[in-house]
């Protein structure tokens, strides 16, 4: 049996960034990963850094996101991302070309103006443009766009580089990574925890559960049932084409986010549901969602219509019933922390700081008391 200060469960982008931050604070850390690192949500994500308010519903999403609550978190994440590459000493292809959020209907316009006020309140710079002004700025926008907000801080990073870079940086500071090692037991022992895997047991003071869509079964190993609502959503990518789209384009009322990556491929997503969520294997993308997502894309950006689709894929997402992130200590399980939820790519460096502060017993860099797992415990409201 080995002993460390902290066991991190899951080597997605959250586990990787948390392990790095904890090691940097002087803790000994082991990351236990069921399969290969960075392969689930964090390896299938669009990798957008969503700074202006997001569209509030994925297609089919029952409860809307509370955008007003999200925005201060997005602002903090935006600030955090500006130093990540320097901190890790690695190029993660962080790009901040800015982004348009477009509106088509009356209702979209209402949402756009409301969220712009909230953005101003938290210090996120956005500008409202009418349709023609937006088209003058970005001529590929289609005629149905009636208005748009422009946020210069929107951007993206390469998700295939980010998680692995955090892991590497952590390993330089002594983090042990065990891929192919699923956690099968979480047992309270004295002051701390005994974490069981098929290859052995690790004892530790703290457990950080960043198992993404598997947060619920892992917390259940410690006897706490959280209500999570994992889903799988999908992405679409075109062949490489000459520069066509210099920035992000999203839709305030519909599932659409589009960007062209450095290599020239256009990436199209927007949270459309995959055929089903398969937590034991890879989820399959749905043709119905594909057609729906692409139809939105070519209505907003008509020149995309003649590009060819090269691939599509689905990835799992740890959503909660109230669609807000979950981060904090699990009540009744001293030393067990969880972090997860949607947009965890954008929040990764911020959540790492929050988790490290919680382990250190220091004040949180941002108020997340209302986002703790207590609200998701079965039987709780």
């Amino acid at each position, binding site marked *: 049996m080995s002993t460390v200060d902290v066991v991190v469960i899951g080597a997605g982008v959250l586990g990787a960034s948390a392990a790095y931050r904890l090691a940097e604070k002087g803790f000994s850390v082991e990351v236990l990963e069921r399969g*290969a690192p960075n392969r689930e949500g964090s390896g299938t994500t669009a990798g957008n850094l969503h700074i202006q308010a997001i569209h509030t519903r994925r297609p089919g999403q029952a409860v809307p996101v509370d955008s007003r609550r999200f925005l201060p978190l997005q602002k903090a994440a935006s600030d955090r991302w500006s130093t990540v590459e320097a901190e890790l000493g690695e190029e993660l292809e962080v790009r901040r070309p800015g982004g348009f959020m477009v509106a088509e209907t009356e*209702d979209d316009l209402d949402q756009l103006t409301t969220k712009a006020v909230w953005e101003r309140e938290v210090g996120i710079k956005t500008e409202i443009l009418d349709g023609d002004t937006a088209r003058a700025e970005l001529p590929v926008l289609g005629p149905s766009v009636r208005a748009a907000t422009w946020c210069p801080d929107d951007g993206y990073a390469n998700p295939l580089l980010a998680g692995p870079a955090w892991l*590497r940086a952590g390993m330089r500071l002594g983090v042990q990574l065990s891929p192919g090692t699923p956690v099968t037991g979480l047992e309270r022992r004295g002051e701390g925890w005994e974490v069981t895997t098929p290859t052995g047991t690790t004892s530790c003071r703290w457990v950080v559960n960043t198992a993404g869509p598997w947060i619920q079964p892992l917390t259940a190993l410690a006897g706490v049932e959280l209500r999570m609502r994992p889903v799988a959503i999908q992405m679409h990518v075109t062949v490489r084409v000459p520069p066509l789209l210099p920035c992000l384009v999203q839709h305030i009322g519909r599932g659409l986010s589009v960007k062209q990556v450095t290599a020239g491929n256009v990436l199209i997503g927007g949270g459309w549901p995959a055929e089903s969520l398969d937590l034991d294997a890879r989820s399959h993308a749905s*043709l119905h969602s594909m*057609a729906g997502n692409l139809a939105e894309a*070519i209505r907003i950006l008509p020149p995309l219509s003649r*590009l060819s689709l*090269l*691939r*599509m894929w689905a990835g799992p997402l740890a959503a909660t019933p109230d669609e807000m992130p979950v981060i904090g200590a699990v009540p009744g399980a001293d030393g067990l922390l969880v972090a997860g939820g949607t947009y965890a790519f954008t929040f990764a460096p911020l959540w790492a700081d929050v988790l490290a502060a919680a382990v250190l017993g220091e004040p949180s860099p941002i108020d997340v008391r209302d986002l703790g797992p207590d609200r998701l415990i079965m039987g709780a409201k």
Partner: protein
Amino acid sequence: MSEKACQVLIIGGGPAGMSAARAALAGGAQVVLLEAGDALGGQFWRHLPESRKGGEEQVLHHKWRHFNTVQRELRDDPGCEVVLGAHVWAIERPDGGQAPAVHVMVGPPDGADREPRTYLPQSIIFATGGQERTLPFPGWDLPGVYTAGAAQALAKGERVAVGQRVLVAGAGPFLLPVVTSLIRTGATVIGVAEASGWKRLAKGWLSRPWELAATRSKAGELGGYLREMVHHRVPYRAGTTVIAAHGEESVESVTLARLDADWKPVPGTQRRVEVDAVCVSHGFVPRTELALTVGCTVDAHGFVVVDDQQRTSVENVFCAGELTGIGGVDLALAEGEIAGATAAGTQPRASVVKARNVFRAFAERLQTAHGIRPGWQTWPEPGTTLCRCEDVTVGEVREVAAATQARGLRSLKLTTRAGLGPCQGRTCGRNTEEILSSCGLLDPGRTARRPIAIPVRLGELAATTSSQREETP
């Protein structure tokens, strides 16, 4: 978009698919035969022009007549719908015993108005064939280095010689007809380099010789090619291959080396030979992307596993031809007939089952004698191109595999971009997989697994839904 129910849907109009269609019709089934090209016949029959001059082998004429007969039968049978220019881009998996939905774009690939269609078949027969596999070596991407198939198509179709001093290298009997075609365009073939050594060739071809008697037509065909080679004094070297091609603008010379049993070059055996063209072909890979999409089990070599009736691991899904193993046109014809008959709910003829078994044994000999050996991985240098579409080198892929924790095929592909170009790994997929699996991947996977089988324009895809706007705000 039109949806059509049908009994037996056959994908691929080469020998296997045509033979399957004919047998399914004979069994009373109503059949739809989809072919992406603008004519039936597939790779084999496409390469047989209608009137060929000079002493062609009787056996080829015989096959051409057979092709014409089958083509006419299929065209005239009211129970058979042949759809040319039919590009299958996705298949939705059968669930709960429902018929799978096969999505097709009909029309020329870059044409403006392709017609989207969906077939809901009771049974599917995949007869999507295989394609040449070329192993990478330094200089393999120089102009003047051709795949054997491309050289043959030029020679036969355009009657163009790829060069004056041509070397043919690789593995397998398919090198022989290439030599014949080259000679007929007036090229001088300075030699054939077969990677497998005499020992392996003997093990594959000379063991149990009485079995070969049953494959007379095949043996006769190969014999014809051999006679022509001997007649033109083309030297045939076993256990030798091209491990590098050199040249400024295009290939000027190659390095030949003797290979050991694993296809590793034997030190000290290298020599330079001047050429102005090289034709290489190291084997064939099956085109399994559609079969994999519906979940068919494949074996260690990537071929679809079938039972005696050509049934795959997925109910009501059959495979015939090169998808199940590379064995040539006779095997494809027999497998097609068995798949077609079974899909129609009838018993295949006993004589065809026997023929299939004989030719399958022939295919196994082919694998024993010429199958690709792992030593090829020592040929490329770090700067050798692995994926042509995205210009990724062997060294880059190995470096990323070693340096990162990206220990899955998918993330390695995405990080290096190998196999991500327009051909989606059709050309380099197997080479990439083998290089990566020798780097010790946790999750090797297969590059052919793709929900979208071929690139299709966004506009066409968007039009496949009525694009009803969902209700949420």
